[in-house]
């Protein structure tokens, strides 16, 4: 019993990261109506970027966050505009395949250049803890939790309350209509993809102090992110947030009661069940 | 042959069809008219199995069909066309029509031959080898009709096959539809082109805001004040009356 609460808190902090990754994915899905199979690869790339920022430049991941945010926004924008859109002729199934192709390229280039060695960084605050009274939480995890929630709120405000957000929602709902009222659809697609990719960069910076990076790391995350997005309802922000937190807790509890390796199966089983029984997710609402 | 009774269909808060009933007898051409958004297409979708009604029953040849999937209803001989044309874009006209012919024809060769025959009936004979996406809007409407016809239906539901066509094209389609009826196929059609309705239909139903507000021969229905109001707004019948006296 004494392990239960810390486990749940632990799950919530992981879940906040899942939510952040899933928010990016759900934004891209909501606007482009395709699943970005390269999302996990971009997360892996961002983890390496944060890793090298620390080891080569001595930049703390939290300090690197704004830089990476911008850098990955630009990368995502460029990928959508000049690779995905360029190659897919706007056909849904081709977009799906192009993102798969991107994932292949990014993952295997990483494997080639950085090998499959597991890398971690040393930060001075790694073992500091926050005392919540009922449980001790490692400081980086507490920061990750708060950071992820703040970023999720910012994203929500961006899409809900700004002109850009209005344009994004218009394109998500009816792209031809949006085009008619003068919205540059290709630009909005790329902006959405860029913002979705920036989410991944933020997740990477918050994650790295308590995590590791390998070329395969994105793969594990992207499946969780898919599950989160499906669980929360494709294109639903609130769904991604709640879904991410929920999955974090489920995973932590499965790990506690069933052991690590079966926890993974648990996530897949949940994923398939949700897909089959409720493909609109627990929160049917869409971005539009 | 077709009896729809008390059909209700809601989309969220919107009641698209609010207790509409209609009957079509064997060998008839019946028209369903009404202002935009009246629920005509929704009624077709219910009858053909693409939507399930919230209330009401649909009987075809004496058997209840509400709730059956579309393909099962089509197999019984009740086939619809789509208002927004739905061609198999990547296939040729011949292949498009052959898909319909395959409903009762297992052999590929005979289905393709049947496609040619049907294409001739609707005036697509010289377009057989063109890709469907190369057709003009008039051509696509004909293709919708041809595919449905190739299934050898008993009852054909035509959703605005004349919308967007010029008068010459309409003349041609009117003749085609009449020929289809003369070959023994019953027809229920949605149409905004009044001239076509008066020339083709023996009976007309008028749907407005999900309800049938009038029924009868075209001439009498068109003169019905309730119908005029439904189309032109409240008080329109009285204004028209006044105008013709002045």
């Amino acid at each position, binding site marked *: 019993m004494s392990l239960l609460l810390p486990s749940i808190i632990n799950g919530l902090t992981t879940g906040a990261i899942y939510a952040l990754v899933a928010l990016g994915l759900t934004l891209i899905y909501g606007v482009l109506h395709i699943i970005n199979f390269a999302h996990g690869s971009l997360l892996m790339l961002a983890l390496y970027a944060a890793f090298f920022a620390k080891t080569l430049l001595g930049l703390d991941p939290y300090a690197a966050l704004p830089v990476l945010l911008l850098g990955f926004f630009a990368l995502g924008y460029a990928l959508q505009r000049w690779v995905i859109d360029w190659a897919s002729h706007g056909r849904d199934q081709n977009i799906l395949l192009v993102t798969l192709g*991107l994932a292949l390229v990014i993952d295997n280039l990483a494997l*080639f250049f950085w090998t499959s060695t597991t890398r971690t960084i040393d930060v001075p605050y790694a073992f500091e803890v926050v005392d919540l009274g009922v449980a001790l939480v490692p400081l980086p995890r507490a920061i990750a939790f708060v950071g992820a929630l703040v970023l999720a709120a910012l994203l929500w405000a961006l899409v809900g309350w700004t002109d850009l957000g209005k344009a994004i929602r218009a394109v998500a709902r009816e792209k031809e209509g949006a085009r008619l009222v003068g919205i540059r659809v290709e630009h909005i697609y790329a902006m959405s993809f860029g913002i979705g990719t920036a989410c991944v960069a933020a997740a990477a910076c918050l994650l790295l102090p308590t995590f590791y990076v390998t070329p395969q790391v994105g793969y594990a995350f992207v499946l969780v992110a*898919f599950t989160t997005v499906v669980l929360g309802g494709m294109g639903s922000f609130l769904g991604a947030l709640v879904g991410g937190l929920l999955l974090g807790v489920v995973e932590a509890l499965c790990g506690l009661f069933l052991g690590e390796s079966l926890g*993974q199966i648990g996530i897949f089983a949940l994923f398939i069940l949700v*897909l089959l029984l409720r493909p609109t997710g627990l929160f049917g609402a869409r971005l539009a | 042959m077709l009896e729809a009774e008390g059909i209700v269909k809601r989309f969220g808060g919107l009641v698209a069809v609010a207790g509409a009933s209609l009957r079509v007898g064997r060998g008839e051409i019946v028209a369903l008219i009404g202002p935009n958004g009246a629920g005509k297409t929704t009624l077709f979708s219910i009858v053909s199995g*693409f939507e399930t009604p919230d209330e009401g029953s649909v009987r075809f040849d004496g058997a209840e069909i509400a709730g059956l999937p579309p393909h099962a209803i089509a197999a019984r001989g009740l086939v619809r066309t789509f208002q927004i044309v739905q*061609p198999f874009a990547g296939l040729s006209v011949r292949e498009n029509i052959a*898909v319909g012919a395959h409903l009762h024809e297992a*052999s590929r060769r005979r289905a393709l031959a049947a496609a040619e025959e049907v294409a001739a009936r609707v005036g697509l004979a010289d377009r057989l080898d063109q890709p469907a996406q190369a057709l003009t809007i008039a051509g696509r409407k004909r293709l919708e009709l041809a595919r449905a016809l190739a299934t050898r239906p008993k009852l054909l539901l035509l959703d605005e096959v004349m919308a967007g066509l010029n008068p010459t094209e309409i003349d041609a389609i009117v003749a085609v539809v009449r020929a289809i009826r003369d070959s023994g196929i019953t027809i229920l059609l949605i149409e905004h082109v009044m001239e076509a309705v008066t020339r083709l239909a023996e009976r007309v139903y008028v749907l407005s805001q999900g309800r049938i507000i009038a029924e009868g021969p075209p001439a009498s229905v068109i003169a019905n004040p309730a119908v005029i109001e439904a189309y032109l707004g409240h008080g329109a019948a009285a204004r028209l009356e006044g105008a013709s006296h002045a």
Partner: protein
Amino acid sequence: MRHWVFGAALVAALGVVPLVTSSEFWLTFFLMALLFALLGQSWNVLGGYGGQFSFGHALFFGLGAYATGILQVRHGVPAWPAAIAAIAIAAAVGAALGALVFRYRLRGSYFALVTLAFAEVARILVASFDYTGSGFGILIALAPGAGNFQFADRRVFYWLAWALVCLGCLVALWLERSRFGARLIAIRENEAAAQALGIDPLRTKTLALALSGAIAGVAGVLYMQIFLFADSHIAFGPTMSVEALLAPIIGGLGTAFGPLLGAILLHALGELARHATGGAPGLNLVLYGVLLIVMLRFLPDGITGLARRRARG
């Protein structure tokens, strides 16, 4: 018509490879290309003709390989009946998966995701139990002999693979000329319109997935008998799923000979890449990824599509 002749010529040329070269390298090269052509054809049946893009075809390949291996190793079933049973299992799982997934109307991204998830679940499960070889994989004892479905002479396997690829092409040609194929293609082009014309999408797509599963199962069985070994990563891994979809997309989706053409091309490229880089791991996959993207941009209908365009104008 012309591309049909070209395809037949390609198949015929492949049939005489063992007669013109005795090089172990070339024989293995073409044998692998044939094996992946078969897997590609399996994907093509569902993805090319049916328009349902699976990202988890490794599931069926793996089932074929593992079922035949386990039946032989754990239950002493003779190789040939084991092979037949394995193919039947792959087909049955395809049918069951189709009935489940298509009933819930999963399409597009959702279908890709759910197939990927099923393949991953299978991979993890297989690696978790001793019965399925856990982390070590399945190893069939070497016992050459026709009765054991093991041939000391590589050429026998080659011709067997070749014959099966021919059969795969015939299945595709049958799809292009049959009512079932017409229905499947109609669903790919426009599901609502297909339904309106009396086509049952659930039934048609489920049958297509069963057929596709069976063909992938054949490829898996063949792989197992050739190498006498498979582990969960090889047989159920995402790389296999990617190989399955690349060949038909590059060769020409929904064409009878596209997967074969694509598989040969891919393996030539992969081999070149291996030589150029001295066998660095993963670089062939980088190349595949780039190729996929570039192909979609410049030849969205694959190489066969290019040939057709040339032929027309």
